[in-house]
């Protein structure tokens, strides 16, 4: 299998990646325009909802939460893969992460920013959102620190700002490259400022390494805590279908899972659009696909644990809810979720699919559809079939306004991501160089060994 050439000229790496920053094609503007339009739909829906009240979303009692919370979890989940690739694999010295972690980390940041929108959109009185912040005030009125939603806010804030810092710190050497290669215009100024005068001195690199490692170490428990805290929104309540012990690991696994699937999607898009075949090689894709499958199985296992707990837990409410999910109004979604998220990943077992780009693209989209449905299946059925039979309600479906905002969030994410790709290098240049350098060293050693072996063999043969 073709991997990155070890003898690739470093200057070529620079030019290849920097090329992706400049001269957007017409298609880029078209797609950006579409993304803006999609986001506009979401904004329009939100303005309407702001003016009219949340009723336009077709919420009711008991359907207090709908697509907003489900999609919020979805986006939060997406964010976890960036951390997985950049932090966990960094610590584990998996060098194949290097060409792809940058965009994954950007994805982390942007999906968190998208998720944050849903926190706001979800509120009945969005204009009072600052009540949830622990800001000092004369009256000493503080938010309720006991609420999992507040933990959520704190965790997401921490995660978002840490991710941005991690992304930024990791990008400084590349920004310096950009600075050195741009000769005029706003970009030059921007890179000059952002690169902070990086010159690649030994002192800078030394501290850089320690810093990067430290943040990576922090990010791992942070990422785990973020999604387990999101899970406490549900697990810390008493409701059937939510009050489940296995939720925190289940959510974390789900997050990594959907994130990996999203990485495959974006990987394929970037590889195609920027012609990064040289760097985003199929060999890496294969590794990501295998990783995705592994996580899919972890997730599937935890999901079965959840079902088993409901089924054997001797809790009539949980049992009823599970039966309702499988046979009630939500059954099509529930089965589709199970199919997309637990059956479809088996495609990734086959070697020929692991590198088959159209198949992987389709699979990754299906996996993410499955994971979105999973979030919807966590949120909605508990409202429809909670404790109290009188208020069970199977006939309330999200309105177009809710769908519009969910739709718009994809536009928002696309805008952010597209701007990022044109302003910042989406492949880490310096780390690709490191990668090929270290690999070439390895190869040299190997060749030296081989040569020695051959000599020895030749010597033997001479006898």
């Amino acid at each position, binding site marked *: 299998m073709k991997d990155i050439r070890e003898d690739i*000229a*470093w*200057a070529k790496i*620079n030019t290849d990646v920097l090329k992706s920053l400049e001269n957007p094609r017409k298609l880029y503007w078209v797609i950006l325009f579409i993304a803006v339009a999609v986001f506009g739909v979401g904004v329009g829906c939100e303005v309407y909802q702001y003016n009219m009240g949340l009723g336009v979303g077709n919420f009711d009692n008991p359907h207090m939460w709908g697509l907003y919370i489900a999609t919020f979890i979805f986006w939060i989940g997406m964010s976890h893969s960036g951390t997985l690739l950049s932090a966990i694999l960094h610590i584990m010295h998996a060098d194949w992460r290097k060409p792809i972690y940058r965009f994954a980390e950007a994805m982390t940041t942007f999906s968190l920013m998208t998720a944050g929108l849903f926190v706001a959109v979800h509120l009945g009185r969005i204009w009072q959102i600052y009540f949830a912040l*622990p800001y000092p005030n004369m*009256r*000493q*009125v*503080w938010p*309720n*620190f*006991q*609420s999992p939603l*507040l*933990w959520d806010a*704190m*965790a997401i*804030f*921490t995660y978002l*700002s*840490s991710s941005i*810092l*991690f992304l930024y*710190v990791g990008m*400084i*050497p590349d920004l*310096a*490259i950009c*600075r*050195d*290669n741009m000769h005029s215009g706003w970009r030059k100024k921007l890179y000059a400022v952002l690169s*902070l*005068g*990086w*010159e*690649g*001195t*030994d*002192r*800078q*690199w*030394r*501290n*850089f*390494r*320690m*810093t990067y490692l*430290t*943040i990576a170490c*922090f*990010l791992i*428990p*942070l990422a785990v*805590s973020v999604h387990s*805290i999101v899970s406490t929104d549900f697990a810390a309540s008493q409701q059937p279908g939510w009050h489940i012990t296995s939720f925190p690991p289940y959510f974390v696994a789900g997050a990594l899972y959907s994130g990996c699937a999203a990485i495959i999607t974006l990987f394929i898009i970037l590889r195609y659009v920027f012609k990064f075949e040289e760097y985003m090689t199929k060999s890496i894709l294969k590794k990501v696909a295998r990783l995705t499958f592994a996580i899919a199985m972890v997730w599937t296992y935890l999901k079965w644990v959840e079902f088993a707990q409901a089924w054997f837990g001797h809790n009539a409410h949980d049992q009823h809810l599970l039966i309702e999910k499988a046979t009630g109004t939500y059954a099509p979604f529930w089965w589709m979720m199970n199919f997309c998220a637990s059956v479809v990943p088996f495609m990734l077992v086959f070697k020929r699919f692991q590198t088959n780009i159209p198949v992987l693209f389709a699979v990754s989209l299906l996996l993410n559809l499955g994971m979105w449905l999973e979030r919807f299946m966590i949120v909605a059925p508990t409202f429809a079939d909670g404790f109290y039979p009188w208020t069970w309600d199977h006939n309330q479906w999200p309105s177009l306004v809710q769908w519009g905002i969910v739709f718009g969030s994809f536009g928002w994410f696309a805008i952010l991501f597209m701007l990022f790709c044109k302003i910042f290098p989406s492949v880490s240049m*310096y*780390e690709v*160089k*490191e990668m090929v*350098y270290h690999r070439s060293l390895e190869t040299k050693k190997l060749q030296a060994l081989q040569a020695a072996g051959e000599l020895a063999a030749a010597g033997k043969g001479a006898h």
Partner: protein
Amino acid sequence: MSKRHLLALFTNFDEAEKVVTELRNLGINGFNAEKDMIVKSPIEHPEVEEFLGNRPVRVQWFTLFGAVVMGFLMFWLTSAAQGNFFAQMKGGKPIVPFPPNFVLTYELFILGGVYITVLGFLICAGLPARRSPLYSAKVSEDQIGILVQSEESASVTLKSIFTRHQALEIQEEAGK
């Protein structure tokens, strides 16, 4: 006494290593290898640093400080906020409950750690930095640069070492 800056660029990392080793070992008069030599590299290059000798990293102390202080502050401030004039009474829970406060402490422990680490990085790495006297964009591409600062007298020796080790280019600038 005026100082002179020299920047030599190498493509071959092995040669650059040799130069560094040589500079450190030779003990050229008017040139202190520990203080006056900076190696610029396009990639993180642990080997180079080894040859440069033991130059300490102190970022981790910032990290420790940030994480511990922020974590402690958060626990303390959360409890204080809960136990203030407008205590929020919650049925079935004390007004200052520990489990939620631990969760928040945990988050702020990380937040503080990350923030102060980055701060520490900027301080330790001397960023943001002005342009150093001599810089080549090649350093950010594929070449390794060795920036030395020396007495006028030593510069000839240094140049010759650089040339011997196949320096691609030697930039020179008079110091102030």
